[in-house]
């Protein structure tokens, strides 16, 4: 265990834990856009910047992104230092210039008293903040169907050669986890379309609900060694079946009781 001070509060944390996690556990409001429990910290949005120092540093202060900084014994953290708040404000202002049409960024900016960007707003913006969560989650799931392409301000998220990504299984992990909701997808009947690729949605053979995509089922079946037929039934029906079976074993099926 290590001991540190965050905004005047002395706290304990596990060695190797990242500073941001400890800060959030304390209920302190430090914004972050690219951090996600499911994937490794990335340090792209820089909003979780904090000021750190130590007694032994003789007044010297350092500015670090807390999502990537492992806790240290004796660390004195200031999450609301003047310089930190100013930097955060500028960073949000810059994001607003990049994504002027994003309601999420507009709200974040408003929280910091910014109603209009003071920089040159991007024309025809796709409102993507380039946090890279979509690509990192996709890679983490084992598919890496999309990635970032190009450099600098031209950086964007794309499929290989901007064509329907061959490795995409249509799981929607990218779209659901996008903090600014800018990855579009459509569902119509048993068709789902994302990244210009069309997927067939499996219809549950029991209840008729639409479940996951055929490609997702195939991939899961391979990865987890589960027979493909398992995915013909939706999760809810599987659970219901399991419950019924367990009840039968225990001998307290309600329906049977009622019948007798």
């Amino acid at each position, binding site marked *: 265990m290590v001991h540190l001070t965050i905004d005047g509060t002395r706290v304990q944390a596990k060695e190797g834990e990242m500073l941001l996690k400890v800060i959030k556990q304390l209920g302190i409001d430090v914004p972050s856009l690219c951090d996600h429990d499911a994937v490794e910290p990335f340090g792209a949005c820089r909003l979780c910047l904090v000021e750190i120092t130590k007694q032994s540093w003789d007044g010297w202060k350092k500015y670090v992104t807390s999502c990537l900084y492992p806790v240290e014994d004796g660390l004195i953290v200031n999450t609301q230092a003047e310089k930190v708040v100013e930097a955060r404000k500028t960073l949000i202002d810059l994001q607003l210039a990049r994504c002027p049409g994003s309601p999420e960024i507009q709200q974040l900016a408003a929280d910091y008293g910014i109603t209009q960007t003071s920089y040159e707003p991007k024309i025809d913006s796709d409102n993507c903040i*380039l946090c890279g969560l979509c690509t990192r989650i996709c890679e983490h799931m084992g598919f890496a169907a999309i990635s*970032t392409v190009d450099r*600098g301000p031209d950086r964007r998220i794309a499929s290989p050669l901007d064509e329907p990504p061959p490795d995409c299984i249509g799981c929607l992990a990218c779209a659901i986890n996008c903090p600014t909701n800018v990855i579009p997808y459509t569902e119509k009947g048993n068709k789902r379309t994302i990244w210009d690729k069309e997927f067939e949605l499996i219809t549950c053979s029991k209840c008729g609900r639409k479940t996951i995509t055929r490609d997702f089922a195939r991939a899961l079946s391979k990865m987890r060694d589960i027979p493909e037929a398992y995915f013909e039934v939706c999760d809810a029906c599987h659970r219901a079946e399991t419950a019924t079976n367990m009840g039968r074993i225990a001998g307290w099926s309600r329906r049977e009781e009622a019948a007798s």
Partner: protein
Amino acid sequence: MAITKVASPKDLDKLQKQCQTEQDKHKRKLMVCCGPGCLANGAAEIVTEFKSQLKKKRIKGFSVEAMKETGCHGFCEQGPLVVVEPQGTFYTRVKKKDVERIVEETLRNNKVVDDLLYTAPDEKTYRDYREIPFYKHQKRIALRNLGHINQCDIRDYIAVGGYQALAKALNKMSPSKVIEEVKTSGLRGRGGGGFPAGRKWESCARLEERPHYVICNGDEGDPGAFMDRAIMEGDPHSVLEGMAICAYAVDSSEGYIYVREEYPLAVQFLQEAIREAEEYGLLGDNILGTDFSFHIKISRGGGAFVCGESSALMKSVAGEVGEPRAKYIRSVQKGLYDRPTVLNNVESYANVPVIIDRGGKWFAKIGTETSAGTKAFSLVGKVVNGGLIEVPMGTTLREIVFDIGGGIRNDRPFKAVQTGGPSGGCLPDDKLDLSVDFDTLTKAGSMMGSGGMIVMDEGTCVVDVAKYFLKFLVDESCGKCTPCREGLYQLYLLAVKISEGMATENDLDKMEQLSGVIIDASLCGLGKSGPNPFLSTIRYFRDEYLTHIRDKRCPAGVCKALITYEVDAQACDGCMACIHACAANAISGKKGEVHTIDQTKCDKCGACFAVCNRHAIKVA
């Protein structure tokens, strides 16, 4: 010729003698510089011509083998260069047609071809290059062999004592002694960071985790810089030897040289050098008969500037996208494949054999107290003698620009010198007496960087310079983190606004504030030093910025939106040259009559200005 492996230091001594005897056979040697500058000016053609002339003419006492293609000799401004050793007879701007004269007069009749000698701006002619001020004020350690040996022949390198330092390290020194020696030398990373190399090696050697990796950073990306390229192309074995010594010190058996794809010759020569060294048993398994093995592979980069940053470089070597990661855990601890890694640049490694050979104390005596040794620079821009130079640390900027560089072209006033590449800074004339070393340059708001040095005269506009370097950094930012990607871009847009006369003084404050945030919040060194082109110019040239903003005027006459081209009626003789040069058809006038420029049509390309022999086009 069958090659027997060098199996002991004695073998190496024997081989060195043998190679020296081979060299001594030639009473005279003809060196044709095949550095990047000379090659661009046709050195390859000259080599071919020499070969065919020498074959045809059969000079007594001079065989074709005595003609050598060498790495960069340094004086690129005067290239292609041909040097006759040991006399040091120095021929400049040699053309194909001059080759026959050199062969006939110098090689056959022992005479000097006077009109090919170097004539300084003060009309003095030099026979021996060592007397020329450009060379006289230099001290060459990292560049010691450049221009003196054939870069593709390991036997040339061995003849001048190559691989002796490695033999010394392997047989007479323990790894910790090698580290001690490098620490004593005070060698600091020549890639720009200036981190003490010995300390870096020590922290890697101490880590128990294996394997350890040794990487050489040859991703020289600064515009106008070519020091590392010249070393890799001109003396590849010195880099290999330095890396092998480092590998021995930190117990590594695997090394990588990261070279940008834009340096095909460096890749080719390094590959050949590795192959040769392995054949001789000086690299690979059981080096010099010991149980130390070290293999070097070449990793080619796609030429992204950010891949010169250590963590991005290591990702690129590992085959991933070259993006930096946060370095709260240093790359010495978790580098390539998350293993302990020593990363130094080309020039640092090239210094190592000399340090081991002559001792750390000897090296520490050169240069200043905190910056030992010498530093190579590529001196470019509006300077008379452009080229590759190496000077002891502590040499002043004035000595470099005026004594070695010969001052400013066309005797125009000096304005600034830009050091440290895109993320470095511009220093004005009152900083000319600053000593060139890591700490002084950083304190002055610039930095040492990897050694690019761009000299600017009055015709250079600092706003334009800041704009250029900011654009470079915007394009080269990987785009991973917000402050660098968006911040530098907005900073660039504001610089453009100034150059167009559309900015207010508030914009300057905004730029300074934004710069501070970019420095504090960026992920890697590229972003953290990204605002430097702006910060160093505003620090020393605020007035020039204000002239752009308040008076809507560009004093240097560079910013297109703020200048007009006008014809000086007194000077114009109506030759029509400008009319033909003007792509916008903005100039009219008959032959022999004063021409006029239609400002509504003029797109300010400057073609008229460039073409007018009578200096009748004025910039207002």
